[in-house]
């Protein structure tokens, strides 16, 4: 039987790579420290696999096919984009577990799109590179429709997380899986408001993460999210899915930076399963 032993929420802002020196040095240092702290905590969980829930940016999937939820079940590489500091190359996979999660979902009403070969984008590769690559742990990419209509409804993102959890618990192998929700909080991507942030909205999201209030986050209205925090904030779908995959939990905020130079409110948190959190 497998176990989801923990989770993390973090951003995947590519402007950290394309405009690395844009924010003041102390801000950059705190952001890099937050990634390093997550990497340290991830190592402490001794995972056998990291499952990273990312968001397509109309790069991987085009108008010819727009999956609501996709899991990569075989050979992996990435990133698909050319980004400074990242070289496209193979990523270590756990294809048997990924195929198990897909098949378990299909048997239980979760219509995963599957990718037997897959090139991940920055929303998976940046987190992997910064927190998991040093451990050499295999990765399972999952993508949710966060930025392109039709969006996956937030409550359905919860069910995807629950399905991941159920599948891991049903796995034959003694897997220790850590689930990472990869996304920014407030940010306007490509709109005339690009560069604006909403720290109040960001704090509200992180407060609900801290409380383990998955239902509260999943109950947010998409129109409100877009109006108050931008189209990029729709990526909190990855947060609620990760929270649901961890199960009853509370969050611990590791860092928060509102970085207009990188056009995003950047939140970092650990998701502590309640049985673990109670023991601390």
């Amino acid at each position, binding site marked *: 039987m497998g176990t989801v032993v923990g989770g993390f929420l973090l951003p995947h802002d590519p402007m950290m790579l394309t405009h690395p020196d844009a924010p003041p040095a102390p801000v950059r240092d705190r952001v890099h420290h937050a990634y390093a702290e997550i990497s340290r905590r991830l190592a402490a969980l001794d995972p056998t696999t990291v499952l990273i829930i990312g968001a397509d*940016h*109309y*790069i991987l999937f*085009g*108008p*010819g096919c727009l999956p609501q939820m996709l899991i990569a079940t075989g050979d992996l590489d990435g990133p698909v984009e050319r980004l400074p500091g990242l070289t496209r190359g193979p990523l270590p996979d756990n294809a048997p577990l990924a195929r198990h999660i897909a098949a378990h979902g299909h048997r239980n009403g979760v219509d995963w799109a599957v990718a037997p070969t897959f090139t991940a984008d920055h929303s998976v590769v940046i987190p992997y590179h910064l927190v998991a690559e040093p451990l050499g742990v295999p990765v399972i990419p999952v993508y949710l429709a966060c*930025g*392109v*209509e039709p969006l996956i409804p937030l409550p359905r993102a919860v069910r995807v997380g629950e399905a991941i959890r159920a599948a891991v618990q049903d796995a034959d192998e003694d897997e220790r899986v850590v689930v990472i929700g990869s996304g920014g909080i407030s940010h306007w*991507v*490509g*709109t*005339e408001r*690009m*560069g604006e942030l909403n720290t109040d909205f960001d704090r509200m999201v992180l407060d609900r993460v801290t409380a383990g209030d998955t239902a509260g986050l999943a109950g947010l209205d998409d129109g409100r999210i877009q109006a108050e925090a931008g*189209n990029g904030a729709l990526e909190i779908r990855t947060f609620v899915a990760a929270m649901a995959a961890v199960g009853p939990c509370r969050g611990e905020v590791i860092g928060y930076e509102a970085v207009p130079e990188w056009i995003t409110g950047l939140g970092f948190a650990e998701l502590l399963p309640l049985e673990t959190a109670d023991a601390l």
Partner: protein
Amino acid sequence: MSLAGVEKALYDLNTDRRARETFTEDPDRFARRYRLTGGELRLLTDRDVRALAGLGANPMLVWGFWLMLPAAGERGDKAYLARMRGDVPASGGPRGE
């Protein structure tokens, strides 16, 4: 106007070098391939990102288009935002990569 056709054209321009080459070398042939109207093609050749967004094109596609094929002399996010906000009018004529 066909939003789906415009988004397909933008997606291919953002992800397919051959599509960018066709668009740059022979915009009319590019337009026929995607069944774009003359007005739709002009939005692309004029780099009229504000109008493209107004049409309903996904802003991630529009921004990506600008990053791949910016207007001459207007490279970068500040220039993009100036156009998106209507501070700088769109201008005619296809530009190269």
